[in-house]
């Protein structure tokens, strides 16, 4: 994770040309009223597509089970008025499933359907304000033109002029479906009509701190200043990832590289111990320099 939120743009004089917008890096700034930028990651196409697929599977699954149960009920009871009840339940179930499944889940506290939750997504308003029921309704009512209208065109068949019309309709429908590809926050039509967007909200566990210096100090490994000046923050983060993943082969490789780079002559110690000690020492050095206002980006950033 090397991405960094876009800095706030300073106020420009009125006549100045608008600066070209920075290329979209998949992150979005959301500044809370307390003045902290939360840096949200916009949901990717793959995640959102999968979430939609999951939701459709759930809806069709539930409606399919509902249909089967109702059929069994209708056959088992063999009462005439039962048929009507069955028909009513089925029709209403279809209608509610198609139109209100998304509304029901997104209007709740978590603002995510089961599919979105599985993919770690949630709906927010584009301005970071409260997500209200009317916005959720609007974004989901638009699904009619985004999914069902193109679907009718793609499934429709015709001859002659009809075929041409269906073809044009399919192209038009395609534009609606692919709309999220053409805007910055990957918003679909419904998102625009409701002022919402979909962001990633992953579950992150708090992992243990790797820089437990008491432990590494007791292992008796010490590094000299020049040895610690070999790397910057970027390398530190790569090292952190390597240690956390804990793949033996990768650790051996990385340890060998570091030993060669810093000219290590401290004897033969296990790779994991060595990497842990080096990580803690490097972080201590970089952080203490950070406190003095020097943020060393990477190993090429030399003063």
């Amino acid at each position, binding site marked *: *994770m090397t991405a960094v939120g876009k800095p706030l743009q300073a106020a420009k004089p009125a006549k100045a040309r608008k600066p070209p917008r920075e290329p979209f890096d998949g992150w979005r700034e*959301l500044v*809370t*009223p*307390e003045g*902290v930028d*939360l*840096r*949200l990651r916009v949901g990717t196409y793959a995640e959102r597509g999968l979430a939609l697929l999951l939701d459709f599977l759930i809806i069709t699954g539930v409606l399919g089970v509902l249909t089967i149960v109702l059929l069994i009920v209708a056959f088992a009871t063999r009462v*005439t*008025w039962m048929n*009507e009840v069955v*028909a*009513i339940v089925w*029709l*209403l179930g279809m*209608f509610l499933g*198609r*139109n209100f499944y998304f509304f029901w889940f997104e*209007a709740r*506290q*978590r*603002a995510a359907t089961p599919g979105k939750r599985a993919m770690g997504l*949630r709906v927010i308003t584009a301005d*970071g304000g*409260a*997500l*209200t*029921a*009317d*916005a959720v*309704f*609007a*974004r989901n*009512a*638009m699904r*009619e*033109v985004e999914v*069902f*209208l193109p679907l009718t065109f793609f499934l429709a068949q015709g001859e002659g002029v009809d075929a041409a019309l269906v073809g044009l309709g399919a192209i038009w429908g395609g534009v609606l479906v692919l709309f999220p590809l053409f805007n910055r926050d990957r918003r679909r039509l419904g998102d*625009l*009509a*409701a*002022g*919402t967007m979909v962001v990633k*909200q*992953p579950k*992150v*566990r*708090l992992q243990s*701190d790797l*820089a437990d*210096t008491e432990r590494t100090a007791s292992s008796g490994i010490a590094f000299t200043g020049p040895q610690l000046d070999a790397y910057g*923050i970027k390398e*530190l*983060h790569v090292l*952190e990832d390597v240690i956390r993943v804990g793949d033996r082969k990768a650790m051996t490789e990385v340890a060998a590289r570091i030993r060669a780079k810093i000219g290590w002559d401290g004897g033969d110690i296990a790779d994991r111990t060595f990497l842990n000690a080096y990580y803690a020492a490097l*972080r201590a050095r970089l*952080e203490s320099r*950070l406190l003095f206002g020097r943020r060393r980006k990477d190993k090429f950033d030399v003063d």
Partner: protein
Amino acid sequence: MAELQLKSWRFRAEREQDWRRLETLLNKAETQGVERLKRDELLELPLLYRQALSSLSVARSISLDQSLTAYLETLCTRAYFFVYGARTRWPQRVARFFVRDWPASIQALWRETVVSFLLMAVGTVAAYVLVLRDAGWFFSFVDPELAGGRDPMATTASLRETLYDKPDAADGLGAFATFLFTHNAQVALFAFALGFLLCLPTAALMLMTGGMLGAFVALFASRGLVAEEIGWLMIHGTTELFAIVIAGAAGFSIGWAVAFPGARSRVDAAAEAGRRAATAMAGVVCMLAVAGVLEGFARQLVTNDIARYAIAGVMLAGWLAYFYWPRTKVPA
């Protein structure tokens, strides 16, 4: 050995308890609902949130542990949406919708409603004139499947029968009403969503609906059954057509905001119009449920013309009064 500890390590050790506490509370609120939180916990949450937020900004400036900042970022985001998110209480929300939001949204759409109504009227008149002159036009306006035998080939007697067809028992009316409701609601939602495409598809849909209406009226008028037929149509039609007119109006308001956003940015204009129109659309679904009941039950059971006209008039007056009765503005 304390001086050997990193500042960021001590920073984390001192605050970790509070972060974990916030996480537990959020989990509880999300899985069991806000109502399950105790009073102290509710008061504690915003404090813990602000603490976590300040931890985040400190961590960003002093700590190079990226797993820590990633954790704090997601924790703060979750807490932010809890603290500043909509705390919807459904009973109150529904009550407010019926008392205030629904009529207010319809009132705000009055211009679009007039346009939508005029388009439908134009369609009706055009189809009426055309079909009256030449019955061959009938199928240009009406889908044969929908006509169900009520077409220019039918005899006057059979047409009269369709108007006063009383079922032997009330069997199947419930299912019929449900079918009508779900079908019409789907069409209305579609008309609304089409509005986003710069109004034109919705306008076409309104003209077509009017056309169908006009064609039917013309067909029955040519057999001298017009008064009876209007009673048959309007017993549910005042509600249903009104709902469709509003659905069209809701669609127009979005399309218009997209095409002509005025001083606001296009995106903001679309979002504002979309939310207002969505409230109106939720109302349209309710209206169509009423219309479905009227069409499925009342029309089949009430065969007296005067009673039919009475129901139609009462419904229309009721809707108009409910929507447009002036009320005092309550701040949102």
